[in-house]
């Protein structure tokens, strides 16, 4: 048996099949699993409002966050193609936030967005906004705080877009210039099609990461709830469940409520949704992703 096969069987296939089995059992981690058929799935689809809340929050953050990350990433990358001098310095500066540990970055943003003494609200009050947002402390604004945190750490996506932009053949722009194309027309009909494979990659990765969003939301929610990580979270998803994302709910059920059977069912639902979304994106990509040298 080759090492790859052994690794696949015991590190991927075995855990996956095990969780599939556990998802059909009542299994609390403390006792042996007991077969209950599809009860876990029935419960989560028909009687668990937290499940649907987690789905809504997760889809919201993906629907808003992923396109914004792509737009912001492309824009930042485009800006970084402009300087004639010092471009490496600028690229480094913009890339730096993405190497900050997620937990540390999230804690820093909790301070930055503190409604009472955080610098953001101090500035907003300074310019005459008397009633600034509660950011992470308000259920209506907490997810926007996470979106901004994500945009701050755009460096990883930005560097890929930058590579894509620099890879666009200059003769295409020259040809467009000869045809009298405007700046927007060049972007729309030359740049975008040429970097569409990179955008597609970012989209797929962004959607997958979106479904797995955990660390930042976990750290922020515990900070907002004033609960230490060691105490665990009765308040995971605070404020008011607005940051209860799918992975957080899965963690809470599996490792805090010790409902491992139920958590396994959640994991398989997450896997199925992620697969469906990824396959759907791949299918639509044939219409809008252009590969250089491709026959189509």
């Amino acid at each position, binding site marked *: 048996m080759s090492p790859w096969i052994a690794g696949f069987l015991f590190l991927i296939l*075995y855990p996956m099949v095990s969780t599939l*089995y556990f998802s059909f059992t009542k299994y609390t981690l403390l006792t042996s699993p007991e077969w209950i058929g599809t009860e876990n799935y029935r*419960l989560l689809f028909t009687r668990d409002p937290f499940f649907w809340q987690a789905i809504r929050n997760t889809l919201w953050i993906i629907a808003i966050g992923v396109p914004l990350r792509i737009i912001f990433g492309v824009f930042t990358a485009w800006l970084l193609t402009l300087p004639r001098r010092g471009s490496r310095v600028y690229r480094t500066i913009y890339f730096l936030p993405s190497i900050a540990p997620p937990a540390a970055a999230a804690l820093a943003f909790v301070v930055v967005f503190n409604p009472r003494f955080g610098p953001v609200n101090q500035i907003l009050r300074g310019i005459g906004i008397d009633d600034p947002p*509660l950011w992470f402390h308000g259920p209506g604004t907490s997810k926007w705080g996470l979106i901004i945190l994500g945009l701050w750490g755009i460096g990883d996506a930005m560097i890929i877009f930058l590579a894509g932009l620099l890879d666009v053949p200059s003769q295409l722009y020259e040809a467009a210039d000869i045809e009298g194309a405007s700046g927007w027309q060049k972007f729309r009909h030359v740049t975008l099609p040429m970097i569409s494979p990179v955008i597609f990659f970012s989209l797929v990765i962004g959607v997958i990461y979106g479904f797995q969003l955990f660390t930042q939301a976990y750290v922020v929610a515990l900070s907002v709830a*004033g609960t230490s990580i060691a105490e665990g979270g009765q308040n995971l998803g605070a404020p008011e469940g607005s940051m209860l994302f799918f992975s957080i709910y899965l963690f809470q059920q599996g490792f805090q409520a*010790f409902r491992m059977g139920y958590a396994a069912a959640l994991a398989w639902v997450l896997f199925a949704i992620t697969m469906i979304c990824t396959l759907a994106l791949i299918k639509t990509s044939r219409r809008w992703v252009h590969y250089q040298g491709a026959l189509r």
Partner: protein
Amino acid sequence: MKRWLIVVATFALVAAACTAGGEDEGPAETAPTGPQEPVTLEMWGAWTGRELRQFNQIFDGFTEEHPNITVNSTGGVGDRQIIQAINAGEPPDVVLSFSLDNIGQFCTSGAWQDLTPFIERDEFDLGQFPDAALSYTSFGGSQCAFPFLTDAYGLYYNVDMFDEAGIAEPPRTLSELADVARELTVFAPDGSIERAGIVMSIGYYETNVATVSTLFDAQWYSEDGTESAIDDDPAWVTMFEWQREFIADVYGEGDFETGAARLEEFVAGQGDEFSSANDFQTGRAAMNMDGEWRTAFIADEVPDLNYGTAPFPVPDDRADSYGMGQIGGTIIGIPRGSPNTEEAWLLLQYMATNTDTLVYMANNVRNVPTTVEALESPELDVTPQFETFLQIFQHPESHYKQHSPIGSADQTTLADFAARWQTGRTDDLEGGLAQVAQQIDDQLAQA
């Protein structure tokens, strides 16, 4: 297809075989006597930092009593790691947990061994513990833990602010609490709360569904523990309706929505609970519900703070119950598969009942000791503020909420509803409580 089914079934069997560990045989018929082999006990607990260093001091006395036994104490270990070790078949000998809510799961599953056979064999006197402490260390007929220090919850109040407002005594009923809170609350010119009399929002520090519902004696479960009572016991409706009236009265000049909006903004700016930025310590809140350990934080961080403590006010129709409050704290036990059960049992008895040990820990980490003898010890360092919590612990009506096999999931579920209720984002109290009860019942069915 058949091949795949065989593969899946094989993996499932292997998975099932790899879970939950084995059963324990229980104690020997008689306690071991005579010379014993040297043994090192592994002790896992949740203490960290300064408290862990103090905790580790207690084992010297045990080794003096039992020279063949040494204790290797590891701190910073949560329930999750303990459960993983039990499942892996490599648990420590003795465990300590801060998560009292998990006791239902520990006892029913046998993950923490039932101590009854040891207690009966050695005629261990459970009367050493006050009844209240015993009640929260057992579940479903299994005494799977002993208490090791406890917490008690009461009212902290700023004496200087009371004096300025001409208030002589701490409030004893919830209507008195509202009057005092109104007096002590200071609004900024823009209407926001500059100083809160007291914040009664669920999720604000130790003000949570468990501590508040204890005051109303609201029942979490039916008598047989098989279903939630949150939609049946009228005390829940009373509690949540009182909360809205309180918010309207104290912070909204009679209007709930105004009060809720002001309070939400105030709570958003709260200081970290376990730091010197705590709202009560900074004077941002004139009163607060908190545990006895706050006395140690204040002594350490704001020693000049002029404050008093008292039992938390009770509902007006339960005025006779004044003096009670929520109690409940650290638990210790022997995990399933403990390699040195007899020695672990000796250590457990020592930790739970040795007066010097309990008094030492109480004096240093500022928790309430959990034996009758330690409570009466002249060595116990009792300040007037700390004395309040000793009294609360010994009040006959003080208790911890009913345990269940679903751990803290009941509180999580109810707290989610409470957060929406207290901010006015839902007005359907009875419907909301019914849904919470249904969710808890669903989880009970799976436990």
